[in-house]
């Protein structure tokens, strides 16, 4: 494909067998074999905390977000992203089964996903892209860690 300004670079990763893509501009690092410490009294979609360059970051259980059960724990990867939540820059880790290639494609290549039968909140996704005959689900980073959820997290001490 020719390089043009509309092309955005994405990091692809897998949750079980499902392929996802996330805009690299949000990605700080991919941690491998990192130990995630569980934190009590937190909702299911928070896996725990991890040590990222000396800083404590929350790790979101991405599987839970998409209603998946983590298949195998052979490759334990955490993708560390920096996102803007409620006006503040936050570093957040997300779990993945493994990371794959870095690809580029256009905004216009992204097709919407039908709501029916999704089983999860499709707002988490911008849409889907066809790459090499496979469908890749494109993450909507800002929605995944939306303001509401972080607030719920903050109030979830009783759960």
């Amino acid at each position, binding site marked *: 494909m020719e390089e043009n300004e509309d092309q955005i670079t994405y990091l692809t990763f897998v949750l079980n067998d499902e392929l996802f893509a996330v805009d690299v501009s949000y990605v700080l690092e991919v941690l491998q074999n990192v*130990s995630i*410490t*569980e*934190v*009590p*009294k*937190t909702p299911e979609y*928070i896996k725990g*905390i*991890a*040590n990222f360059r*000396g*800083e*404590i*970051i*929350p790790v979101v259980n991405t599987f839970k977000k998409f209603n998946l059960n983590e298949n195998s724990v052979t490759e334990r990867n955490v993708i560390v992203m920096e996102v803007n939540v409620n006006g*503040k820059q*936050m570093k957040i880790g997300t779990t993945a089964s493994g990371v794959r290639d870095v690809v580029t494609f256009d905004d216009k290549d992204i097709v919407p996903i039908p709501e029916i039968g999704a089983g999860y909140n499709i707002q988490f996704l911008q849409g889907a892209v066809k790459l090499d005959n496979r469908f890749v689900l494109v993450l909507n980073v800002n929605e995944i860690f939306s303001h509401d959820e*972080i607030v719920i*997290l*903050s*109030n*979830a*001490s009783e759960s």
Partner: protein
Amino acid sequence: MEQFKQKFIADALELLQKLENSLLMLEEHKSDKSITVDIFRTMHTLKGTAGMYGFDAVENLTHHFESIYDLIRNGKLTINKHIIDLSFKVADLLKKLLSATDESVYKIEIAAILNELDVGMDNESGADEKAANQEYKANCYYIMLHPDIDIYKRSINPQSVVDEIAALGKLEYILHTGEIPLVEQEKLKENTAFWEFFLATNSDKSEIEDVFIFFLDDEFDIYTYDKSVAKGCKPFIEKHLDNFSKYSNNFNIDAKIEEIKATFEKISPFIVEIVEPEPIKEVDIKNEQVVFAPLQRTSIRVESEKLDELMNLVSELVNIKARISLIDLEQNYDLLTSAVDEMSKLTNKFRDNVLDIRLIPIESILVNLKRMTRSLANSLNKKIEFISEGSDTELDKTIIENLESPLMHLIRNSIDHGIELPAERLANGKPETGTVRFLAFYSGSQVFIQIQDNGAGINPEKIRLKAIEKKLIQPTDKLSKTDLLELIFTPGFSTATTVTEVSGRGVGMDAVQRIISELRGEIEIDSEVGLGTSITVKLPITLSIIDTLLVKTGATNFLIPVAAVETCEMLLNKPLSGLNRKQVEYDNRLIPFISLRDEFNIAGENATDAKIIVISNNDRKIAILVDTILGEHQAVIKPLGDVFKNLDFLSGASILGNGELALILDTNKLIGSFKSANNFVTI
């Protein structure tokens, strides 16, 4: 140039704080001359340096201000409330001028204050006719000035120095220009000119020193000359022997002594008596007055960023030390072990040192608290005395900075709602003047700050009614007095029937509690109707590194601050299941019990050799059940982040030597969660 200017502004603001402290003291001890002299000196210093950095308005204002205090210290003007009020106004304006980018913005304010100052001087000053025949109740000084050869490179005009000294009193001087030809002088590469000054003056030694501010210490000497010690001229002549003999011909020591005596005779008619300088009075702490000895410590100012970086480096060092300790444990190599032990000791000392650097005495926020008390009492027409104890108690810099706002609010409350109007106090058999007492002291690993007043106290009944009205509690709820008092900390609660302009708006008691909480502290309140109220704030001394006990339950590591730990025991022969939040017997008492596994839903079973750790907070104790105790760990506290803000039972996390993370338990909160009787369920 800009950085020097910034440094000057920082120095100047510090001087102004010193000034404010002096003014507060002066108000209590109006006849204490030494304070007036202090103020004069402070203003004099400020005036000089302000001019250098182009702060003309500051220089001008300070000059006028200094004149007033000059009159006061010479007995021409007496201190009164009006002058002190004016002085505070001047201090405030000076602060504004120093921070302003454009001085001219304050032209009108300056003119107004100058006007008041002049008026003040006219009204109060007595007859000035004696000026011409000024008698000096004076000191005599002998000053030797021998500047280095680069004096002109330093843009110092010796003549102006002479003029300045002359302005201090009555001066006679001898200038030795030496009889060494210029050629020789150049070869010597020394300045061969020197002065002998004979001065009779009212000023004290430090003012004379100020004249020589731009000279190096070894270029001048100032001696107090006492008539009765005239024979003792020898010591200082001998000290400067090489000056005299090198640079003047025919030097004869006895002749010199005569010359000195004779010159002093010349100025002695102006000396009425020689007075010993008054020692600075220390106020007696036994009478619970404000403890205020001007602390003479040598110190340097360090930028916070540098300190923060130092702290970070120390934290990393502590972490790496932990890693090395771990490796040593595994390898068990003798030589390594002893080296690691030494390194541990050193790192500990280093850590303690750096933490200590960040500690500053709480006194630094007292000035503002006192000033607020003063002005608030004035505007409310209440008579209030502010007493402080333990102002030298030290806290981490960050904690102190964040404390000021909540403490101001608490004191505002005491003054506004607590202390009654003088008439009411008298009617109740209380002294007219109310007292607000500020205490700071250490207790265990915490700092306690108490604010007490002998005012009206808080009525628990009023709180109950208000809380019912605001639907915070049910009419049938049984709450103890302490529980009721603590309702004050609920957001939106305010018992004042009118929101006064001063308190009760925005910064509520709930905000105070939140800030204290964020500093990992606690706040407690006690009150008796008619007697007064006491609020206690408890804070950790430092924020960053604490000694902890590392324990494990399931796969999760927990850290318990050693300061809170009382004992560790094995739990034997007691049923373990279903015990969470129940009670166990300890030390002939029943204390509440938490099993971390059950409390936090951790997988697995409680083993029969599980350990119990008894933690305490003052008198209150609870027992914690864990799987294993792994040892001690110096925890560098890392915040968990906003996401976990509401998990108040954790005060953060720490990175262990093996890279794993451990959760730090907030023992006070855990113990606190048992406070209400409702949480006790006996087996």
